[in-house]
């Protein structure tokens, strides 16, 4: 693997003592409770070892004692920035096990809710990435818009962070009356604001200097490490579970027109409207990972607009949740969904004895995404470590579960 040219900064003749530095778990830019042990020579990091487990809450073991619907709140707390997407993943896995067919309206409701939460999650990812690079204001701009999304989600389900809204069988309630108008109003207001984010970060000369050609990850490497989501697509791999996933998941998006956000022939699907790729950026670097996320926000807006139209025309009910004591058939089901951070898989095993599964497991996307960090952080500067970790956009709740 070719390393970024930053490694040329190392002065070989000035040999100084190596120093072990502990970055985290209380460090401001490790996104929660990640702990990195850095082996540094002056400002140059020769090795970065991530240590995880500070947020382990035995969620999977708890799942072996609860019915699938009762475990929904625990999935919220895995990726707490995209609780709805977590709910959706688990709900689909359970539905796959009991072979439940979703009403059409519930299908569109799930798409709307999941994509809305994706925007909220990417806004946090964008804002905190600005913080990692020392730019404070985009963070608050992002939270300003996210606040409105949370208000919308609160209107829908009563909670702002841990929703437990999408459950096996559908959702706990229908969208309240007038909600879709509010959503449309938000989207109309939000779409032009994205240009501000691009001006403050994506297009900013200093931002480009800090992210372009830093932490370059080739497509092969991304696949080898099992990366997924924007991290994988940022390396130029054309793979999105919403298009390439299992039928039960892709059927949600059937009839929706969307393009997978990935660089093809040097440009992104939406390159013409938004800032072009700077000449310094190399495919697979921090800038590309960030840009993919930004474009996915716009993609989600498109999907939401389509969803609003489809939902208001759809027939049937919003999908009543399955009964708490629904008997689970003997067997196992595994299903992966495209969460904001990547491929989130849920696995459920039942021995057919009752309504409580024998095993409930989650496959974390961030865990795999984080596993490339030692490789990417080799021979970079200390200042690049937050830039690289931030571009992976990890959530420790999901890694440790």
């Amino acid at each position, binding site marked *: 693997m070719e390393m970024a040219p930053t490694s040329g900064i190392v002065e070989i003749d000035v040999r100084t003592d190596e120093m072990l530095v502990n970055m985290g778990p209380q460090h*401001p830019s490790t996104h929660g409770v990640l702990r990195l042990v850095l082996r540094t020579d002056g400002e140059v990091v020769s090795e970065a070892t991530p240590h995880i487990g500070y947020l382990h809450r035995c969620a999977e073991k708890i799942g072996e004692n609860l019915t699938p619907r009762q475990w929904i709140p625990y999935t919220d707390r895995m990726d707490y920035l995209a609780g709805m997407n977590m709910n959706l993943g688990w709900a689909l896995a359970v539905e796959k096990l009991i072979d439940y067919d979703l009403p059409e309206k519930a299908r569109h409701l799930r798409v709307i809710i999941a994509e809305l939460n994706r925007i909220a999650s990417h806004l946090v990812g964008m804002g905190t990435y600005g913080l990692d690079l020392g730019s*404070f204001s985009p963070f608050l701009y992002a939270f300003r818009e996210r606040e409105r999304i949370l208000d919308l989600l609160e209107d829908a389900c009563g909670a702002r962070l841990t929703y437990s809204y999408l459950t096996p069988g559908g959702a706990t309630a229908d969208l309240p009356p007038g909600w879709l108008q509010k959503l449309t109003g938000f989207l109309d207001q939000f779409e032009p604001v994205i240009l501000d984010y691009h001006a403050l970060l994506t297009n900013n000369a200093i931002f480009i200097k800090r992210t372009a050609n830093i932490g370059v990850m080739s497509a092969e490497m991304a696949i080898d490490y099992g990366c997924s989501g924007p991290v994988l697509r940022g390396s130029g791999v054309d793979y999105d579970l919403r298009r390439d996933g299992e039928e039960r998941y892709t059927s949600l998006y059937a009839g929706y027109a969307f393009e997978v956000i990935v660089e093809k022939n040097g440009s992104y699907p939406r390159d013409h409207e938004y800032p072009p790729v700077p000449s310094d950026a190399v495919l697979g670097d921090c800038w590309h990972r960030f840009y993919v996320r930004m474009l996915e926000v716009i993609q989600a807006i498109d999907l939401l607009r389509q969803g609003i139209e489809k939902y208001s025309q759809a027939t049937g009910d919003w999908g009543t949740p399955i009964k708490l004591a629904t008997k689970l058939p003997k067997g196992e089901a595994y299903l992966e969904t495209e969460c904001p951070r990547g491929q989130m898989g849920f696995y459920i095993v039942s021995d057919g004895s009752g309504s409580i599964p024998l095993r409930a497991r989650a496959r974390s996307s961030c865990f795999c995404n984080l596993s490339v960090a030692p490789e990417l952080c080799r021979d970079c500067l200390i200042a690049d470590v937050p830039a690289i970790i931030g571009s992976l956009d990890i959530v420790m709740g999901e890694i440790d579960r």
Partner: protein
Amino acid sequence: MADYFSTWFPEGWDWLGWLLAAIIQAVLLLHVIAVGAVVFIWMERKIAGRIQDRLGPTRTGGKFGWLQTLADGIKLLSKEDLMPRDADPLLFKLAPYISLAASFTAFLALPFASGWVGVRLNIALFFVIAVLGLEVFGVILAGYGSGSKWSLFGGMRQAAQVVSYEVPLGICVVVPVLISGTMDLVTIADQQSGLFSNWLFFHDPFCMLLFWVYFTCGIASVNRAPFDLAEAESELVSGFLTEYSGIRWSLFFMAEYGSMFLVSGLAAILFFGGWNGPIPIFFWVPEGNFTLETLANLVGLGNFLLKAVLGVVVMMWVRWTLPRLRIDQVISMCLKYCVPIAAFCFLGSVLWTALHLPFLNDVMPMQARGDVREGWVQDIDNEMQQLEKRLATEAYELNSAVEGGPQQEAQTSLEEDAADRVALIPTPQPEGAR
């Protein structure tokens, strides 16, 4: 002021007057800086709030939260004085004072209005830049003495950064000195009196460019974003400040805000006419009229503060907008861009001056640059004039007492004596002598 106080005391005790004047001036300056820091911190919060689409402090002190900083200061004062076990006690405790002293000492030579200066040095600019550079010692000591690896990184970064940015900053500062022919800040600013086109910023196109280089380097040398590497929060926790809390931490903070004001005040004096407003309103004030001169100086003080505070506001604006640079980018920016551009502007300005090319400065000159004298030259001028007056009266008395030649000769020889002493200074001959 010292001369005035000295008249209060009997002969031989006039040093008491000097002491009194020094104490008053030092206390005044300290308060300007301390109150300035309080205001600036409040301002920074409000500005950051507005930039980030929020309100900032609103409650403490009634409206606008204007007492918020004071409340925080009291909180900081009442905090426990903590020191990490691994810290070097002496260096850890010494560091904030060094930073603060360096930042405050520089204010001694910074004039706030024409003649309103703690000590009028004829090398004031040199003194300010040199003392400002000392601030880095406090940071390095803090980084080294804290016993924390993050602090050490911060100190090292600061050392590298400040040392490299002193170079372009020095080059930028030399140009106004070359144009005005003095390092006395009062004189430099006085020379720019008149219409705003007389400001050195408008001296030639190179000066216009140079100001931006100076301002960039100024931001870097006072360690503000995007060059705040020494306390880079997302990388080094808080850099050299990591282990500090309470009053020691606030001392560092005050030093930072003091230096910010100093750098932009210096920019105002060097490039934007200091206390001279854009339009000369007070040119009619007769010399020697104490009340009117004080009034003019008060307005000048307002002018100067406005310009300096504007610079500080721009620094805050930049801080809350831009991401942070990386250490190698900061250094390479200094060496690859700032130093060459500054050197180029230096050459350009010198050529412009040497060739007497016209620019905005020549639109409406109020006073020729050379006519504004430096402080020490003025003193000699005054002495000279007094001497001549005395000589003239003596000669007149002699002339009227004894009619004849020898006295005439005595007078001319005396005049020649005096002229020898200040041969280099062209002085208008007093008319009464003839």
